[in-house]
């Protein structure tokens, strides 16, 4: 055998050894670490959507650090976390989930944050089998609100259906009441993907209820060319445009809207079209653009002062770009971390102060009650809406604030939280959940306990 070949084989053997080693290290438990609470973070720092993700993890990690540094953990149980790259792809997301689901160093996984709509959908059933709750804030399967059918999926705070309904209600607020919606034309320009289509059903229902005209205009992925769609909008002349984009689609939509002369202050971006990263690349024409979000931007919330004092100013922040402090995505990370931490706290109150496992965290989530009072204690008044979950309601909130871009930053322009018509939509959601249960042969849980 030639030396070269031998070298090649040796190097391959080393590679293999390294794999085995790294897997083995991951599996060894050490008793000492079992006093920590483990949070695996599925992140996407590579690929087309990395720019939207990076501030989220920063907000999340900063809040975890704050809990550890200032509060000494959750009732003394320190948080540990590590990241796993998903590229926002289902396959890699599943690899991450499988990698972390057994916990780390003896500390169990209480909650998995899939950070990606398709990933969360693919994990729906695996998470039930593994008893690990998925918390998907403002994304994920809407019908998972029905916890009787989806015990381990938590589309908390603001589902896509609520997003659509709140957007409509904001328009009502602007035009002077829901009765004025009649006869309006509302065009939804959406990313043509399962995520984008989620709002078709509720909007059709709301259109029927309030008498506005529901126009649906798909934009094919990735959405870097939309002249046809906006030419159509110029022709149809809708009164409002509800923009549900993702990634590059949003800035291109705003720019193209300007090109055809559609007033940008009559475009309401959805949750994933409403960040600084979405509107900044559109440049000057983005001024006046609106967006509905459960994560209002701003760095003046009480929790932000604390984060600044204890984390950012001490150089502990995960934030690359200090400009992003208080941005929509940063705040979404903080929000998500608050929900996770409070769910653990709730579970601890029931099961005892120790690292909480998935099954216990599921109980914690279903009994989560983020009241105004509790939010004030955390310092998240105005940042997070009050939230009360139950087995029948895995969403809890269902309201968003509307922001307007002034060319530099977002300002809240809605009258506080704009509530969605949950009472109108919930029956439909339960119906769909029941249909899912029938198709899959799931017996819904009894929700009385």
């Amino acid at each position, binding site marked *: 055998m030639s030396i070269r070949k031998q070298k090649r084989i040796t190097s391959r053997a080393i590679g293999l050894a390294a794999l085995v080693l790294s897997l083995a290290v991951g599996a060894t438990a050490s008793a000492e670490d079992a006093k920590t609470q483990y949070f695996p973070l599925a992140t996407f720092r590579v690929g087309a959507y*990395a*720019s939207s993700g990076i501030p989220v993890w920063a907000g999340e990690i900063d809040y975890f650090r704050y809990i550890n540094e200032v509060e000494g953990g959750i009732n003394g149980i320190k948080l540990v976390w590590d990241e796993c790259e998903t590229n926002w792809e289902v396959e890699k997301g599943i690899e991450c989930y499988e990698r972390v689901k057994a916990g780390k160093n003896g500390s169990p996984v209480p909650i998995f944050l899939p950070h990606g709509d398709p990933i969360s959908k693919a994990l729906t059933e695996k998470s039930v089998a593994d008893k690990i709750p998925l918390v998907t804030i403002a994304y994920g399967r809407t019908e998972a609100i029905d916890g009787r059918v989806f015990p381990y999926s938590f589309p908390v705070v603001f589902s896509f259906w609520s997003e659509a309904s709140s957007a409509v209600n904001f328009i009502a607020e602007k035009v002077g009441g829901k009765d004025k919606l009649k006869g309006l034309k509302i065009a939804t320009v959406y990313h043509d993907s399962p995520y984008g289509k989620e709002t078709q059903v509720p909007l059709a229902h709301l259109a029927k209820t309030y008498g506005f005209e529901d126009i649906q205009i798909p934009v094919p992925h990735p959405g*870097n060319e939309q002249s046809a769609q906006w*030419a*159509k909008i110029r022709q149809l002349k809708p009164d409002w445009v509800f923009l549900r984009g993702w990634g590059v689609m949003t800035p291109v939509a705003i720019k193209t809207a300007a*090109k055809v002369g559609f007033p940008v202050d009559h475009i309401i971006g959805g949750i994933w079209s409403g960040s600084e990263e979405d509107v900044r*690349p559109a440049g*000057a024409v983005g001024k006046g653009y609106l967006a509905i979000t459960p994560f209002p931007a701003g760095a003046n919330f009480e929790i932000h002062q604390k984060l600044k004092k204890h984390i950012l100013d001490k150089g502990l922040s995960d934030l690359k770009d200090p400009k992003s402090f208080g941005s929509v995505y940063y705040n979404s990370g903080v929000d998500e971390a608050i929900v996770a931490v409070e769910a653990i706290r709730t579970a601890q109150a029931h099961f005892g102060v120790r690292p909480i496992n998935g099954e216990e965290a599921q109980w914690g989530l279903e009994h989560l009650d983020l009241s105004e009072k509790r939010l004030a204690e955390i310092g998240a008044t105005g940042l997070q809406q009050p939230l009360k979950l139950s087995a029948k309601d895995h969403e809890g909130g269902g309201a968003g604030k509307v922001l307007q871009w002034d060319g530099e930053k977002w300002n809240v322009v809605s009258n506080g939280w704009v509530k969605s018509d949950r009472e109108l939509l919930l029956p439909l959601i339960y119906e769909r959940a029941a249909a899912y249960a029938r198709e899959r042969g799931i017996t819904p849980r009894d929700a009385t306990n």
Partner: protein
Amino acid sequence: MSFFVETFIGGLLAGVMYSLVAIGFVLIYKASGVFNFAQGSMVLCAGLTFVTMRDRGIDFWLAGLITLTIMVAIAIAVERVVLRPLVNRPQITLFMATLGLSFVIEGIAQIAMGASVHELDLGIVDTPITVGEVQVSQFDLVAAATAGVLVIALSIFFNWTRVGIALRAIADDPLAARSIGIRLQTLWQIVWGVAGFVSLVAGLLWGARQGVQFALTLVVLKALPVLIIGGFTSITGAIVGGLIVGASDSLAEIYLGSLLGGSVSTWFSYVLAVGFLLVRPTGLFGDAPIERI
């Protein structure tokens, strides 16, 4: 009717944007016989480099010059390190190698310059111009004019300079090129360098249109049908192909989309391209090889 015209013109102008990217492919295909998938990453890299320097306060033209230098350097390096060792290998292998290469360029560009989204302002005002009832975007007109200038410049370059003539010669016979007195390798590097320049222009215009971000790499997907229709070896073909793809995509999205449910533009240009291929198996302007047995 004005709606049709507007859609049509909007599509044509969008098509010019595709052509801009497609020209880079044509150049490299002519020189190295490879469909260079990494062109998209080069467009991203160019946009990102430029905008990063602008963000640091570097003068517009200086930033352009530095970016150009970097792009040409990358292009030449790619030619030397990746494509030359793969010479005489199946075309599909070369293609896949450039795809692998795009991972490298994207990875390194984002390590060096981050993954954030940047605004790129070229100072082009974009209020629509109204002619009769038809609106036309100023920005798109500027982009189209740029593409036009680029095509004219490249045509002059290929038809009247020694390098250009030699380049056309190597397509037929590598020995002929040598007889003109230009070394083949120098020639390759020059063409790759020019392709680097083209990716800079494309990067700037696309970057200004949608923000400098990762999605810039996806523009190659629209360049492909442009090239199939226009032929892999013709700059004129790239322009004509771009116009056809742009206009037909827009019209299909509106008129076919209302029948089939939208998003037809994800595939329409590809199906159209296959249609063209069935009639002319090497594209509208492509060179047809003669098979002998």
